[in-house]
Every structure is written in structure tokens, then in C-alpha cells.
């Protein structure tokens, strides 16, 4: 049994491919736990960042700087009354949030946090991700229909039309990236998520800069389409607060509503990780071919530790700036503790064995975090598109452009 567990560690592959159930389960738990934590952190960060965009402070009361706000929210949502409209289709109403949640969490099976840090590496990885994430449309449609009310229905119709439309452009943009993976000696590409990153590694270039500006345009299309896919601003028509109150989840409350939110944020992280994998080099550290050599490797491997130490430092500044009043004592201690934990993590990350293992995961998460920040930035900046404009952008701009990019990429691939 112990052999079974340890044998994986010596193998150089993902637990799914190694067929090691134990490590697969461990990875599943770690990834899903990590994603749940990330969603909660994202919730807090979005509120804080958005607030600072809007010259507010955001949550400040629950914990130091509102750090415990997501937990308070979770408790509030869990204990809230769960209302099911009397005319609703109970079963479908119950099922819809679960489908969205499952769809957006299942895709993490193939997300490659590192060359071996994925639950499994499917041969059809990217296809699987697109397919499973497209299943969340079902949840949206079901939620809108089951609520038996006008606003959710319109929201669901809008949302499904939107998601289906942008899936097309998104798929074509993805195809042009996949096409780039086939530009090697054998001429065969791959759909595997790990394979795609490895292709970028072997071609010594992020696909973002491949055939400039083709890769860039394809990435841009994907970046727009992924915002639309996840129903976020400025494409948040299905949830357009001012028009449809809350779109397809108008009638949901409490726990079920929180499942929608959980699913939405998880989907955001998921599509961002697709973008990172396809165009921005996945787990690769910046400039792996330019800044080579031992020294640079060391420098880049120290960055995670320094980042956490920096965060710890910021936390301690916050501690120093806390009002010196008995009322704030608990908060001050809490923030200091938080800073200490961050610093400890930073120190642990300096340890050579940890440093080497955690690097890939760190760079992957850092890249995803940039996308997450973009999501927040969009939300603070842009007004909302109108439905016909949204459709026009999807079908008349993104789709032709993505087809053109695909054809040009193919031509370039043949020529060079």
C-alpha cells in the first residue's frame, strides 16, 4: 500500500495518467479546496478592489480590513431562508445551481498547474474543458425556466444565446492556438493541456507572440469571449441588474444563490486558466529562454517567497496603522497573525525542495490572477452592452476575425 502511494512520487507524470487513485484523490481534494479558497479570496478581492476603484473602502468590519467577510457572507447565505417559488418546477429548480457548480468545477480535472501538477492529462484536454464549461448553459436555462417567472426566463434566454454565440468565436480562437502546437518536426499538434504548454516550451515562445500579431488577435478574441462566457461585465446582460433585476437567478436565494456565485467565480478562474495555458505559457516562468542560467533560475524561484514576504510586510504596515484603541485589539492581533502566516509561508517557500516544486504552480496562479484582476477592472470601467450590440460583436466581429486568424495561422504554419 505504501509502495502504491510512494511509487507515484518517483514517476514523472500526473496521477491520472499514472493511474494512481490515491494521489488522484489527493490532487482532486487539493485542487477543489484550492479553487474554493480562491473563489472566496476572489470574492473579497473583488469587493476590495472594486471599492478602491470607486473611492470606497469596501468591507472593513468583519475582521481586519474585512478579511473575514467571505466567511461571514458564507454563514449568512447558509443560514438564510431558502425560498422556492410556489409555481416553480421544484426538481429542476433544485438541480440548476448544482449543474452550474459541477460544470465549472469539473473542468479543473485537466487544468495543468505544472508539468505534473494536474489531476490528469486528457488527450482531449482542451476539448473537454470547452465542452464541460459549455454545460453550464444548461444550468442557466434550467434556472430560468424552472423559476416560472418572466425576468428569469428572459435572462436565461439572453444568457444561453450569449453563451452559445461566444462559444463559437472562442472555439475558433482556441483552434488557432492548437494549430500552433502542430508546428514541430512531426507536424502533429495536441489537444492535451500539458502538451500545449510543452509545445510553447519547445517552440520557445508564448503563443501570444507567435506569428505576431496573429496570436495576439486570437488571444484578444478569447479574452473577450471568455468574459462573455462567464456573464461578467461588460457582458453581464443575463444578470443586468438595472434591466432584469438579477437575470436567471432572480428567484434564488440563500444557499442556492451562493452556489450560482461559486460556480460563476469558479468558471472565471477556469476560463482564465484556459487562456493562460493556451497563450501565456501556462506554468512557465517569464523569459525561460532569454534569462537562462542558474542565477536567473534562482532569482525567479525566489520570487514566490519574496511575494509572500511582501504581502506579510503590507499586513504589518496595516498592523502599525491600526487605531491604537482597545476596541481594535482583536483586529490588530488578527491582522498581525495573518501577516505572520503570510511571512511563514514566504519563508517556507524559500526552502529549496519546496521552492522547486511550487514554482510552476506559482507562476500559473500568478498569471491567472492577472486575468482575475482584469475581470474586476472591466467591471469597474465599462458600461453594459445592449443585447443586439452584444450579438453583433459576437457574430459580426469576433467570428469573422477569428476565422480569418485561423486561416492566416494555417497559412503561416505552412509557410514557416
Amino acid at each position, binding site marked *: 500500500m505504501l509502495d502504491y502511494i510512494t511509487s507515484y512520487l518517483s514517476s514523472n507524470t500526473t496521477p491520472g495518467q499514472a493511474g494512481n487513485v490515491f494521489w488522484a484523490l489527493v490532487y482532486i481534494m487539493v485542487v477543489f479546496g484550492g479553487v474554493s479558497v480562491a473563489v472566496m479570496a476572489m470574492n473579497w478581492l473583488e469587493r476590495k478592489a*472594486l471599492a478602491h*476603484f*470607486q*473611492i*470606497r473602502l469596501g468591507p472593513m468590519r468583519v475582521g481586519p480590513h474585512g478579511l473575514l467577510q467571505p466567511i461571514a457572507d458564507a454563514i449568512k447565505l447558509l443560514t438564510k431562508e431558502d425560498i422556492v417559488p410556489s409555481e416553480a418546477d421544484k426538481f429542476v429548480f433544485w438541480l440548476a445551481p448544482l449543474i452550474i457548480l459541477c460544470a465549472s468545477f469539473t473542468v479543473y480535472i485537466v487544468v495543468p498547474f505544472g508539468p505534473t501538477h494536474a489531476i490528469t492529462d486528457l488527450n482531449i484536454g482542451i476539448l473537454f474543458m470547452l465542452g464541460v464549461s459549455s454545460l453550464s448553459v444548461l444550468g442557466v436555462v434550467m434556472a430560468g425556466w424552472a423559476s416560472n417567472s*418572466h425576468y428569469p426566463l*428572459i435572462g436565461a434566454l439572453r444568457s444561453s444565446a450569449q453563451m452559445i454565440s461566444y462559444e463559437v468565436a472562442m472555439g475558433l480562437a482556441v483552434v488557432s492556438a492548437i494549430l500552433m502546437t502542430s508546428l514541430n518536426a512531426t507536424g502533429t499538434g495536441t489537444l492535451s493541456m500539458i502538451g500545449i504548454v510543452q509545445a510553447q516550451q519547445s517552440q520557445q515562445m508564448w503563443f501570444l507572440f507567435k506569428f505576431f500579431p496573429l496570436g495576439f488577435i486570437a488571444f484578444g478574441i478569447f479574452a473577450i469571449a471568455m468574459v462573455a462566457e462567464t456573464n461578467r*461585465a*461588460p457582458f*453581464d*446582460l443575463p444578470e*443586468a*441588474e*438595472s*434591466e432584469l*433585476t438579477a437575470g436567471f437567478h432572480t428567484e434564488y436565494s440563500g444557499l442556492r444563490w451562493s452556489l450560482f456565485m461559486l460556480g460563476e467565480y469558479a468558471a472565471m478562474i477556469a476560463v482564465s486558466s484556459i487562456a493562460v495555458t493556451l497563450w501565456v505559457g501556462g506554468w512557465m516562468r517569464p523569459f525561460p529562454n532569454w534569462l537562462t542560467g542558474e542565477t536567473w533560475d534562482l532569482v525567479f524561484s525566489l520570487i514566490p517567497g519574496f511575494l509572500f514576504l511582501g504581502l506579510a510586510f503590507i499586513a504589518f504596515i496595516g498592523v502599525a496603522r491600526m487605531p491604537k484603541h482597545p476596541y481594535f485589539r482583536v483586529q490588530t492581533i488578527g491582522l498581525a497573525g495573518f501577516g505572520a502566516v503570510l511571512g511563514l509561508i514566504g519563508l517556507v517557500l524559500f526552502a529549496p525542495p519546496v521552492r522547486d516544486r511550487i514554482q510552476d504552480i506559482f507562476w500559473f496562479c500568478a498569471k491567472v490572477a492577472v486575468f482575475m484582476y482584469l475581470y474586476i477592472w472591466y*467591471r*469597474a*470601467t*465599462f*458600461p*453594459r*452592452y*445592449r*443585447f*443586439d*450590440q452584444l450579438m453583433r460583436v459576437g457574430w459580426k466581429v469576433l467570428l469573422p476575425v477569428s476565422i480569418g486568424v485561423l486561416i492566416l495561422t494555417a497559412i503561416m504554419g505552412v509557410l514557416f
Partner: protein
Amino acid sequence: MGDQITKDPASFISHLELDQPDKTFLDSNELIINMGPQHPATHGVLRVILKLDGEKVLGTECVIGYLHRGVEKIAEHRTYTMFNPYVDRMDYVAAVSNGLGYCEAVEKLMNVQAPPRANYIRVILTELNRLASHQLWLGTHALDIGAMTPLFYTFRDREEILKIFEKYCGARLTTHAFRIGGCLYETYDGFEQDVKKFIDFLPPKIDEYEELLTTNRIWVERTKGVGKITAADCVALGVTGPVLRASGVKWDLRKAQPYAAYSEFDFDIPIGQSGDTYDRYLVRMEEMRQSLRIIRQAVERIPEGPIMAKVPKVIKPAVGEIYHSIEAPKGELGYFIVSDGSTQPYRIRVRPPSFVNLQALDLMVRGQLVADVIAVIGTLDIVLGEVDR
């Protein structure tokens, strides 16, 4: 301008045939949706019944009156002085303008005139109030269209105006700043500095709002060509204020029939060309700048002197009637007062700009999409307190 209404008058009204049974999307293509009275984008308790063909609006019907408080009836049972605070509650985001219109109407009826210093104070406060009203409009309008951030920016800056109000008369929203015959309060120490500081403070902030919106592609797409209304239709429907000006009519009561001290100031009337939501946005933004110009002139030239005309303790206008209107932030705000010689008005009729402007909603949104209804309600800048009175 001045041209005949070529349209069929019936085309200004849509008939919804609400008694038809509600059908599915497909068979009749028609869907009746109730927007409001509890809806985040109807700015209060406006209920709009929308008849939709998919997302396209076939017709609307406004159901109003949820906030009806019978202000005109109350007026008949209050003395002239007692009624003064009530007018603040109509257009509660532009309470100072309301008070100005009422006080001037009663003064006119009594044939007295407020002293020049009072008039200058009135102009300063009213223009500050116009700024506050436009800022509130901008924030909520942008929020309706999905841009969250301007709301907070405008509220931050509106706060400065409210602080001046608070310092001047103790109230922030329903100020009751003016009295019949002038102003009750002399300006506080540092009033002029505060106002001057504010005038220097706001222009960069207006640039900031414009930076977020004016050239924002999505904003332009959402507002350009949306809710168009021609000048002829505006006149026919009695629409006034920025909506009329955005259609290209250079008409502002502050210039056309100057009241208070407006004839002494130099300012422009911004106009638009196409009468769409984007033009109305630009017109209001420019109006904010012009307001600042007026305030600057007023605060620099504010004369010394009494602030209250000689009015009797008990206000008892002679038998007669008067109509006086001012340019409120939303349009022409008129007061028609009939006096029977007693201490109480015999009848007060308020001509609310929002009420009349709201009539144009149907014409402006017909044939547009649901999302445009939101934009148009926002751009009409209605306040339900004033619509329902």
C-alpha cells in the same frame, strides 16, 4: 421650431390592449412585462407596462401615482408660508429650485421683489443645486447603463455641495433655503470661500466623469441614436429642459424670461443636434460647466445689502392669479397660484417638468429594445416625487 405637427396626434400614444390574454413568446410574439414599481432602474416607484416583441418594445404605458401625496390639495389648506417647505418634497433632488420657483411666484403675486443680494444667493444656491441634480442624474444614469463607477464619483462630489447647503441652512436635501421675499439666512462666514473652492474643485472632476464615459465605446454605442426625439415632437409633447435643448432648441428660461438675477450673468445654453441620449448626456455635462460659470460670476459680484424684502408678517396677496416658471434642472417648473385674498392660496398648481417629460417616454422607446427603456428613463431624468406630487 414653430412648425406644424405633421404627425397624427394618435401616434403619440400607444394602445397596449392589456386585456388580451398573456400568450407565449411565439404565437403572438407579444409579451407584457411590468417594469416596476419595484425595479432598480425606474428611479423610484414608476411602473412601466411594456409590450414587447421579443426584446423590441411595441409600446409602453406608464402607471404613476404611487407617490401621490396631494401636494396641491395640501396647499389649499396651508398658508403661503406654511406651504413653502412642502415644495421641497416634490423634486427632492432639486429642492432649492422648487423653493425658488415657489417663492418667486408668491413674490410676483404680491408684487414685491427680493433684494439683489438675496437674488444672488438664490442664484448661487440654485445653480449648486442644479449641479447636484445633474450629478445624481449622471451617477444613476450611468449605473443603469451598467457603469458602476461614475455613481461613486458623482456622489463624492455632490457631497461637497450638500455640505455647503448644510452649512447654509442646516439641511442637506430638503433645504427650505428661501423665504417669500428673499432669504431668511445671511450667508455664513466663509460661504464665498467655500463656493469658490468648490468651483475650482469641480471642473477636473467633471473631466473625470467625461473621461470615463464620453469616449467610452460601449457608452457611446449604448446612448447614441437611442431614444431619439425631434425638436418638433419635444415641443408638441411639452418637453422642456435638457431634453428639449439636446434636440436642438436653444431655449432656456434663464435666458428667455430671466428671473432672479440671471439677466446679469453671462453664460451659454448648450444644445445638441440629434436629440438622442448621448446628446442629452453631453448637454447636461456642458450645463454643469455653465452652472459653474454662473456661480463664479455670482460669487464674485455678490452685492451687499438686505436679504429680505419688506413683506408683511402675514402674507395675504390680493385677489388675482399668477403663473411663474423657472428653469429647474429637469425643465420648466411652473407655479400657477390663484389667490382669493385670504392667507391661504385658493389654488396652487405645480407644473412639474418630470411629469410632462415622462409623457415622451412612450414615443422615445417605441421600436427600441428593453435595455433602451432603462437608458431613456435615465436620460429623461425624472424624479417620481415630482411626477406624482
